[in-house]
C-alpha cells in the first residue's frame, strides 16, 4: 500500500513537472496571447523554417494543427469549438464549405501578393473570382513507374495499365474519386460525371483491371514503391515527389489524354479570430521567395508564377511535376458533387474493391 502510494505521488510529481515545463516553454515561444495564428493544415505541409521566419518578421507565432483528410477537417470545423484562423482544404471541399457557410470572404484589399499568381490557376470553377480561397499548391494524378521493371514507353497512357503484362503489378491509391476518375478518362467521359450508367460502366472497366491490381493502399504506397515492392502505382503528384526523392529509379507520368488537376487552398473559416495575423500570413506566403522555399521543401507545384521563376531550372522544367500546356489543358478539376452522387462513386468503387 505504501509503495503504491509513493508510486502514485511520484507519477503525479513527474506529470506536474512536465506540465510546468511545457507551459513555460510555450510562454517563452509566445503561443499564448493575442499575437498568434492558428493554422489547420495537412501533416508536414509547410516548411517549418518559414514559420520561424514568419514569427521573426511579424512577431506572430503560428500554432499548427494537422488533419489527414478533407472530411475530417470539415467535420471538426463544422462542429465548432475550434479557433482556426486558416485551413487548407482541397478544391471540392472549398465549395462544400462555402455552401455550408463555413468560410469568410477574403478581403482582397489587404492582400499584396495576388499579382504573383499564375492566372490559369485562379478563378476556378470551385471558387469563381477566388472570393474565399487563395491557391496554396496544385498537382495531378498520374502513374509512378520503376524503370528497373517497366520501360517509360510502356506506361504513357492510362490504357497501358490494362496490359496483360502488368498482371499483379499495380498499386492503386485508395481513393474512390481518383480511381473511378481514372477509369472514366479511359472511357472518354468526364471525371465529374453524375450519370449512374456511366459510373456503372466505369466500375465494369475497373473490374477488368483487377487482375493487374496488386493492392489498393494509402500512404504506405510511398514506402512500397521506394522499396521496389511493385513496379507501378497510381498516385498523386505530391506523393510521387516524395517517392522519387527516395528512389532514383522511380518516375512520374501524367497521361496526356487527361487526369485530375487538384488544388489545395488557404481559406479563412468562420471560426477565425486573428485577422491581422491571417493577412500578414497570406501576404507572407504569397511572397515569391517564401512560396519558392515552401515549394522546394514540399515538392508540390506552386501556383505562384513568380515563385516558380525562382525555383532551380531542373525543377521548373520538370515535365513530371510542371506538365506542358497541352497536358494541363486536358486536366480536369473535381467539382463538388451532391452527396448522393459521391455515395454512388463510393458504392461503385467499393464493389470494384470487393471484386478484385
Amino acid at each position, binding site marked *: 500500500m505504501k509503495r503504491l502510494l509513493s508510486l502514485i505521488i511520484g507519477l503525479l510529481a513527474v506529470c506536474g513537472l512536465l506540465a510546468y515545463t511545457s507551459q513555460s516553454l510555450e510562454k517563452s515561444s509566445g503561443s499564448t496571447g493575442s499575437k498568434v495564428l492558428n493554422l489547420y493544415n495537412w501533416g508536414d505541409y509547410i516548411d517549418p523554417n518559414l514559420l520561424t521566419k514568419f514569427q521573426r518578421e511579424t512577431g506572430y507565432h503560428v500554432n499548427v494543427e494537422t488533419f489527414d483528410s478533407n472530411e475530417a477537417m*470539415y467535420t471538426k470545423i463544422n462542429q465548432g469549438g475550434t479557433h482556426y484562423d486558416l485551413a487548407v482544404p482541397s478544391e471540392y471541399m472549398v465549395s462544400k464549405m462555402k455552401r455550408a457557410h463555413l468560410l469568410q470572404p477574403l478581403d482582397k484589399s489587404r492582400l499584396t501578393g495576388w499579382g504573383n499568381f499564375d492566372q490559369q490557376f485562379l478563378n476556378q470553377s470551385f471558387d469563381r473570382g477566388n472570393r474565399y480561397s487563395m491557391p496554396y499548391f496544385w498537382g495531378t494524378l498520374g502513374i509512378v513507374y520503376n524503370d528497373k521493371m517497366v520501360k517509360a514507353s510502356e506506361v504513357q497512357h492510362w490504357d497501358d495499365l490494362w496490359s496483360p503484362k502488368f498482371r499483379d503489378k499495380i498499386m492503386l491509391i*485508395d481513393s474512390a474519386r481518383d480511381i473511378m476518375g481514372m477509369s472514366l478518362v479511359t472511357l472518354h467521359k468526364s471525371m465529374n460525371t453524375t450519370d449512374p450508367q456511366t459510373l456503372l460502366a466505369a466500375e465494369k472497366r475497373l473490374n477488368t483491371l483487377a487482375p493487374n491490381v496488386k493492392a489498393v493502399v494509402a500512404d*504506405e504506397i510511398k514506402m512500397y514503391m521506394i522499396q521496389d515492392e511493385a513496379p507501378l502505382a497510381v498516385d498523386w503528384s505530391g506523393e510521387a515527389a516524395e517517392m522519387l526523392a527516395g528512389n532514383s529509379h522511380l518516375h512520374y507520368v501524367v497521361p496526356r489524354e487527361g487526369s485530375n488537376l487538384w488544388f489545395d487552398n488557404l481559406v479563412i473559416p468562420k471560426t477565425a479570430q486573428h485577422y491581422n495575423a491571417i493577412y500578414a500570413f497570406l501576404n507572407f506566403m504569397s511572397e515569391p521567395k517564401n512560396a519558392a522555399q515552401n515549394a522546394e521543401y514540399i515538392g508540390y507545384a506552386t501556383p505562384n508564377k513568380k515563385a516558380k521563376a525562382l525555383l532551380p531550372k531542373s525543377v521548373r522544367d520538370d515535365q513530371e511535376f510542371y506538365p506542358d500546356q497541352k497536358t494541363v489543358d486536358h486536366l480536369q478539376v473535381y467539382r463538388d458533387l451532391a452527396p448522393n452522387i459521391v455515395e454512388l462513386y463510393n458504392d461503385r468503387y467499393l464493389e470494384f474493391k470487393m471484386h478484385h
Partner: protein
Amino acid sequence: MRAVTKRRTWLYFIPYGLWLALFVVAPVALIIYQSFFDLGHHFTLGNYSTYFQSATYLKMTLNSVWYAFLITLFTGLISYPTAYFLHQLKHRQFWLLLVILPTWINILLKAYAFIGIFSQAGLANQFLTFIGIGPQQILFTNASFIFVATYIQIPFMILPIYNSIDDLNPAFVNASRDLGASNWQTFRRVIFPLTLPGVKAGVQAVFIPSLSLFMLTRLIGGNKVITLGTAIEEHFLTTMNWGMGSTIGVILIVAMIIVMTLTGDKKPKGGAPR
C-alpha cells in the same frame, strides 16, 4: 443497519453506472439513432433496406464473418495447446508475461513490422530465397492477412484459457486417471469441458474484434479482403453518410449480441454459492 449497507452499495455503483451510461449506453443509442437518418437528415428506414437488398453489403458481411471465423479458429488451435503447455512450466508467470508483452505494442506498429517481414526484400522472402524456393508474393494475400490477425489475437485467447486451466482442480484429472480413463478420455471428458468457459471467453474476445478489423485489411491485405470495417470507415470518412455507417455499426452490434448469446454461460458456474 441493513438499509444503510444497501445504500452504501448503491453509492459504489455510481462511478461504474456513470461510465456505463456515458461511454456504453449513450454511444450505442446515438449509433442506433443515427442509423435511421439519410443524407438529408430525414428519418428513414432506407439504410436498413439498402443494406439487406445490396448484394455488396451482404457479401461483405459474409466475408467478415468468414474471416473472423477463420481467425478465431486458428487462434484457438494455437492458443489451447499453448495455454496448456504454459501451465505445466516452472516459471509460468514469466512465460505468461512474454505472451502478454506484444499486446503492449500498438497494433499499427505491429502491422508495419509485418510489412517489413513480408515484403519482397523482407526477412521471409530472404529465407525462402536462401532455402532455394525463391521470393514469393506474401503481402496482400488472404493468408498473410489471416496470419497477422491471428498473431495479434493470440494473447487474448491464451489468457482466458490459461486462467480456466489454472482454475481446474487437479484432483479431477487424477480421479479420472485413477478410474482408468486414457489421456484422451481425460482430456475429452474432464479437462476440455471444465475449461470450456475459458475457450468461450477467448472466442468472444477474438471473434468480435475480428469482425470489424479494417486497418489490417488495407495494410496487410491490400484491400483484397474487404470487411464491414472498411465500409464503415468509408461511410464516416469519405461519403460522410453517417446514417449508412451507423446502420452497419448496428448490424455489427447485433452480430456481437448473437455471438455473446451463443457462447455465453447458460447456467451460473463456479464462484461461491449465493
